[in-house]
């Protein structure tokens, strides 16, 4: 067992990450140990990253223990860069996290400052990047371990020492590599001479509206009022661009650092503020404001063109229907509202598919003529015991759910064979019988694999009315 991380007090006691647990116990007898859970750490980091979405829309995870916030164009909202660093660090300190912050012109530089600068909070004003980076150790470049070691052996211990060397000499000893962490590649990125990409946790949305509350909102009613306000802005923007939203996401930022996400989808693009708000209000019923919510962000995650429409003469029945489908889907989940569609397959359970409301409806002619099918179908055919007078003859009696049914009439068999043209059809042939018992109840039975040898196996697949 090895230590993966230690806190400040443990460090003072002489414990280091990578140390064996027995050695650690020898140094500090009363040390408290928790089992490392990297997956949970990563989750917590992602959660924190989402929470940081309140400062800027562009947040990304940096390795397993860092977050990158692209605050370009955001800092003035918090009173300038130094003030923003203050705000961020105050909020994060408030969560009891030990944080180091660096703010600089480039992503690499900010990362290097946060991780290797002697002070915990470091802001570099624009243009002073080189001076700030010069005293940092070479590891801050983020190059491979071997390269960093070689540099140290060469007596190049700081970034400043490297930048003073001619590029050609560096390129000869440290060729650039595909992974992008060759020495010169890193150096160019850190100094802003080469582009560096950021893959944000939340993809940059085109439509995003934010509302900050002066006082944290403690009740759902307050949130609903706020939603009206945000929705009005959202629909105005959508209307301006002739667009409609298919999917809306609402984030509620709790004052305690919790973030809840609520997604609603519409069956077709819409910018009807009332309708969208009603969909979201249903979702808000599950929100627990906890200690209060101090900001909400509404985000149109999927947007499609929607031209202004003329009023129709049929009272807009289709509109009413779409609104109804959206309301049902928002409350019950997207998979709960479906329309039957004939698929053209042979086996009854595959012959019909339940399609989502967004899919194009099938034409009635897609249900071709076949012998009568039952009104109710079992998703999983139920095994039966069947007695027939002669092996391949019609069934005379069957036992289903421990009840005996005497058959008065039977029609069949209708043979359904596997689809030889479908490569993955592994079903066995079935002989279907339409039978009626002495009381008049009708059933749809089948015998599996009638040409196979052994005991015939029978199943009940449906009930007629």
């Amino acid at each position, binding site marked *: 067992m090895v230590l993966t991380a230690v806190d400040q007090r443990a460090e003072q006691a002489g414990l280091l990450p990578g140390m064996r647990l027995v050695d650690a116990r020898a140094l500090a007898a009363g040390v408290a140990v928790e089992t490392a859970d990297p997956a949970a750490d990563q989750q917590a980091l992602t959660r924190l990253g989402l929470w940081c979405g309140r400062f800027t829309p562009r947040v990304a995870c940096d390795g397993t223990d860092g977050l990158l916030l692209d605050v370009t164009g955001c800092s003035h909202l918090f009173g300038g860069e130094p003030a923003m660093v203050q705000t961020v660090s105050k909020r994060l300190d408030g969560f009891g996290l030990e944080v180091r912050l660096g703010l600089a012109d480039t992503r690499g530089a900010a990362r290097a400052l946060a991780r290797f600068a002697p002070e915990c909070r470091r802001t570099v004003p624009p243009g002073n990047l080189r001076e700030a980076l010069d005293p940092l150790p070479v590891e801050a470049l983020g190059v491979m371990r071997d390269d960093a070691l070689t540099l140290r052996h060469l007596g190049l211990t700081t970034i400043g020492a490297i930048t003073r060397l001619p590029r050609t000499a560096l390129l000869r000893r440290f060729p650039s590599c595909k992974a992008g962490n060759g020495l010169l590649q890193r150096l160019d990125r850190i100094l802003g001479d080469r582009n560096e990409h950021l893959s944000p946790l939340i993809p940059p949305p085109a439509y995003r509206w934010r509302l900050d509350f002066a006082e944290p909102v403690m009740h759902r009613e307050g949130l609903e009022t706020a939603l009206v306000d945000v929705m009005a802005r959202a629909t105005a923007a959508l209307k301006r661009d002739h667009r409609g939203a298919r999917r809306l996401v609402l984030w509620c930022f709790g004052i305690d650092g919790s973030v809840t996400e609520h997604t609603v989808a519409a069956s077709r693009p819409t910018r009807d503020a009332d309708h969208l708000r009603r969909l979201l209000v249903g979702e808000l019923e599950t929100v627990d404001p906890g200690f209060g919510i101090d900001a909400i962000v509404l985000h149109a995650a999927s947007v499609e063109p929607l031209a202004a429409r003329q009023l129709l003469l049929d009272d807009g029945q289709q509109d009413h229907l779409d609104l109804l489908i959206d309301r049902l889907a928002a409350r019950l989940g997207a998979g709960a509202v479906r329309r039957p569609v004939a698929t053209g397959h042979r086996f009854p359970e595959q012959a019909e598919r339940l399609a989502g409301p967004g899919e194009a409806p099938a034409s009635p002619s897609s249900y071709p003529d076949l012998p009568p099918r039952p009104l*109710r179908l079992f998703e999983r055919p139920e095994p039966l015991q069947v007695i027939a007078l002669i092996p391949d003859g019609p069934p005379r009696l069957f036992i289903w759910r421990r009840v005996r049914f005497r058959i008065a009439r039977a029609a069949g068999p209708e043979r359904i064979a596997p689809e030889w043209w479908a490569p993955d059809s592994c079903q066995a042939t079935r002989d279907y019988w339409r039978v009626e018992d002495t*009381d008049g109840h009708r059933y749809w039975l089948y015998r599996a694999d009638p040409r196979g040898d052994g005991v015939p196996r029978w199943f009940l697949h449906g009930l007629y*009315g």
Partner: protein
Amino acid sequence: MDKNSRLVALAALRQRISALERPMQTRVSAEPDTAWLPGIKTLDGALPLHGLTLGALHEAAGAADTDGPSAVAFLAALLQRLSRRDGRETILVCESGAGRSGRLYGWGWRDLGGNPTELLMVRARHDKEALWIMEEGLRSAALAAVFAAIRSTGFTMTRRLSLAAQESMTPALLLRDDGLAPTSAAATRWLVRTLPSAHDSLDICAPGAPRWRLGLVRCRGGRPARGDVEWHHETGAFRVVAALGHRPAAAAADQQRTLRSALLRTG
């Protein structure tokens, strides 16, 4: 109490009842297309205006546990008789819970004469949700009809559904598993019992058109009635069954014949 005062009391009671019933009757007669005609000769006479009220709740239940599918089929057949108005074509179908008797199958719906593509199937986890879906569907005024199958419900909910149906002029059909519970605000309540069918016209061994014994147990503004009917999906009409075909001797002879022809065909 002498005979005269009894007559007077009866007349007063009749007057009170007709006063109670009048608001509904005037509402029904105000618009001629508010009724929906099942076209069952023996039962139509029992219904007010010889039809079912459009904006109302209609309940059905199987007479026995095994008659559930027949009750569904009867309601489905009734829906085929309903003419679509104002471009309302979709029928919302909602079944609560994972049914012990499978799910509604579009192909079977087609074989009763319906069009499966006009169905909108909504899955509900429990009765309460199913009733919410039903009410929501009724209030939307965009559906041809709303049909739900649930286990049981109380009076208040049926009243809510009735009002929602009346408001949007959308028929609400409710299938209940609990038989017909004593209290309900439904306009009509039907009890469906499956009857053995006559043989198919082309195949003597095969089952023919579905046959049900319908009991109109309760009918607001009408009177209870019963009758045996067959549903013919090709014509989209109910046919009254003559009682003669059910004589025991005929049934026995029929069975003999069935057996013989089955043996002949397979042997």
